[in-house]
């Protein structure tokens, strides 16, 4: 082919394509009307909800994989894939039965053997799963729809473990997929949830598409968070990854997308003023701002120094740095648990209300602090951690601590915080983060509250009084006992400064007014959401 012919062919192809002469994957207008376009909080870069436990993966997985139980808005586990369960009188044998008619997206029925293998994979990665595994005698299928879990000692929180929405959730996969090592990523995304993952349309970093699963049989109960009937009212849900907040806001205003999970607070006034957009609180359980101090090395291996930081802290400074002037979006938090939840407590939280720099300086003087620099590691690429880091630096200076502010990105913080070496040898003294309020309603999935030394989360606090109360909570017979354990736990955690809570804050979500059924929850729920 010579140059002239090539140009003719290329031009001809372009004209054909432009006029619709070539086969194209584009949807017709009718189909487009049934497509819900959603901007998630982050990129769906991988899709194994056991291997990778980021919230965005969990949120997408809740569409594709179902769970045996689902948590409702009253934090109660409700049956989802199971028809029923029995527990022996000694509490040692649990027998479960699947409801009939459940199918995976590849058309095969959901069987007990699939459940057993899925639970085994989940157990290896989940803190509550590991607790069950430690007291397990046997987990096995009895027949196609029944399986038993035999334990060495009772585990009263069994249903909560299977229902909880904290990552990793106990999603049920086909046995052949669930046999994948829990530390290796699965490559086949077959579930039995209300939507199928359109793998061929997945462009990591740009788009993820979910299609309605025609054979899904929702429960008859009304939908309530992860419990009840998951009725999908659109044909497709497209996740459009828009990394730039201003662009996402513009796309929502122009109608190119329908729903934005986490609008930046600076842009919320613009969205609220738009006639076609609704704005409301996204997750009512919000987030708990935090900075972790390294309990292994000076100066924060000294209890008095840690207490001095809490004594001087003014949580309002931290919260305003994140949410600005919107008072609806934050609350002071004299403790560690999520406000508005049944077991919330402020017991023993007085130190977090003091805001007393003079008292803090006195504690520093008593501590014998000899001027070691505080290596304050801050991820600048996350607005909340950046904002909190700036406030912390001023706080530490105000009480006489020497601060070495290390401004970096989250990828570096993630690696550096795992270092147990002294700060002078590549370690760290403190880093900033936040915890989803959904993870902090009780100790079951609250990794950050644990204080079991080497096994604890980064910072490695070692406080036996805290661990005793965690155990007491797990063994509690009723809610009164749970509440009492939580009160003591909160007090011990504050007194020993397991970490520093910087306050409780909420965020908005925004959606077009032609979209109905959007609810507040710890994750975006797509069931019963319709697009007009």
């Amino acid at each position, binding site marked *: 082919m010579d140059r002239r012919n090539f140009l003719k062919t290329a031009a001809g192809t372009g004209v054909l*394509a432009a006029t619709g002469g070539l086969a194209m994957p584009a949807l017709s207008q009718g189909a487009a009307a049934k497509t819900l376009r959603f901007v998630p909080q982050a990129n769906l870069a991988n899709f194994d909800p056991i291997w990778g436990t980021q919230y965005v993966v969990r949120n997408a997985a809740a569409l594709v994989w179902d769970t045996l139980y689902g948590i409702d808005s009253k934090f109660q586990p409700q049956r989802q894939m199971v028809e029923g369960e029995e527990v022996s009188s000694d509490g040692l044998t649990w027998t479960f039965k699947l409801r009939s008619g459940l199918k995976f997206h590849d058309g095969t029925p959901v069987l007990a053997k699939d459940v057993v293998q899925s639970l085994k994979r989940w157990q290896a990665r989940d803190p509550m799963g590991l607790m069950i595994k430690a007291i397990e005698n046997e987990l096995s299928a009895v027949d196609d729809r029944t399986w038993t879990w035999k334990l060495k000692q009772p585990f009263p929180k069994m249903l909560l473990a299977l229902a909880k929405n904290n990552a990793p959730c106990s999603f049920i996969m086909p046995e052949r997929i669930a046999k994948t090592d829990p530390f290796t990523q699965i490559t086949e995304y077959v579930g039995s949830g209300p939507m199928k993952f359109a793998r061929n349309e997945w462009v990591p*970093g740009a788009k993820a598409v979910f299609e309605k699963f025609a054979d899904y049989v929702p429960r008859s109960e009304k939908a309530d968070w992860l419990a009840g009937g998951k009725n999908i009212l659109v044909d497709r849900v497209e996740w459009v990854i828009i990394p730039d907040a201003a662009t996402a806001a513009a796309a929502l205003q*122009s109608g*190119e997308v329908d729903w934005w999970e986490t609008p930046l607070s600076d842009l919320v006034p613009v969205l609220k003023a738009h006639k076609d957009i609704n704005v409301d609180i996204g997750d009512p359980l919000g987030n708990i701002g935090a900075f972790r101090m390294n309990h292994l090395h000076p100066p924060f291996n000294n209890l008095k120094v840690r207490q001095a930081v809490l004594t001087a802290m003014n949580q309002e400074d931290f919260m305003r740095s994140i949410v600005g002037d919107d008072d609806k979006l934050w609350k002071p938090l004299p403790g560690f648990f999520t406000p508005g939840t049944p077991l919330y407590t402020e017991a023993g939280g007085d130190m977090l209300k003091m805001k007393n720099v003079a008292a803090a300086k006195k504690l520093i003087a008593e501590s014998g602090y000899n001027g070691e620099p505080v290596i304050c590691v801050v991820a600048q690429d996350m607005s909340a951690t950046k904002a909190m880091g700036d406030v912390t630096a001023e706080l530490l200076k105000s009480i006489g601590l020497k601060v070495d502010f290390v401004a970096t*990105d989250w*990828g570096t913080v993630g*690696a550096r915080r795992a270092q147990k070496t002294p700060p002078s040898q590549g370690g760290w003294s403190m880093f900033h983060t936040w915890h989803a309020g959904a993870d902090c309603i009780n100790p079951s999935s609250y990794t950050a509250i644990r204080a079991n030394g080497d096994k604890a989360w980064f910072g490695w606090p070692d406080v036996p009084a805290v661990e005793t109360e965690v155990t007491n909570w797990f063994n509690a017979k009723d809610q009164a006992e749970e509440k009492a354990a939580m009160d003591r736990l909160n007090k011990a955690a504050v007194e020993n400064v397991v970490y520093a809570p910087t306050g409780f804050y909420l965020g908005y979500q925004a959606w077009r007014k032609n979209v109905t059924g959007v609810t507040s929850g710890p994750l975006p729920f797509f069931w019963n959401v319709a697009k007009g």
Partner: protein
Amino acid sequence: MLAFIIRRIITTIPVMAFVALFVFSLLYIAPGDPAAVIAGDQASPADVERIRQSLGLDRPYLVRFGEWFFRVLQGDLGTSIFTSLPVTQLIAQRIEPTLSLMVLTLILAVSIAVPLGVIAAWKAGTWVDRAVVGFAVFGFSVPVFVIGYLLAYVFALKLDWVPVQGYTPIAQGIWPWFKNLILPSITLGTVYIALIARITRATMLEVLQQDYVRTAQAKGVGNRDVLFLHSLKNAAVPVVTIIGIGVALLIGGAVVTESVFAIPGLGRLTLDAILRRDYPVIQGVVLIFSFVYVLVNLAVDLIYTLVDPRIRY
């Protein structure tokens, strides 16, 4: 000429090998840990370590580099740590938007900047010249993302002429493809237009002082022919050079532009990979960009011989 082209392509091999070694080493010593990102914020240190082991990140530098380099020699750029997809597949998914953006930007920039530079030189010292120089200063001074937001606000949000974000493959029609790309191309092209216009103006000013130009004018050759036939060709070598160098600017600018307009191109792929420490993807994309840059330089060298027959290889 053919011998020159073959020689140049062969010489790219050690350059690419050095780039590969450099990039791999840089990532090895850089702080950050993909395992920590994968495991999620709530993961225990033990979980992070298990993931590091499963990804092979705990193995020695030389072993990892040797394995990677051997695979690259066979055309295998490895597998993304995060998506478990082949890097070649990820790059293939993203190359069309970036190439489209770069080509359209280049066409826009050259077709606007070269005439602007020529006219500014011809009208040196007048308000036309000052306007072009002023535009060039503006183009250099205003950050890419500011221009992007301004254009999106006016032409997408207020006038509703084009979409705010996204990319439509050319197979779905030239018009939808163009509508998605026009704002990003103008955004990215602004700096480029400024750069080429200034260089064109400067070299044209020099050429217009030459005796042969005065001779042509004295012979009664028309202004258009004097400018575009006699002068521009002789001013073209530095202009072609700067267009070639500008491709590097385009690659860098594409990262920002693709983020602002949510275009799923190689720029965003690179940025995402860097933030997550997805080493195989970073290495793969850098190798591709390096190769493109070497080829562009080769093309520039060849174009020299077309615009100036005295240049021979």
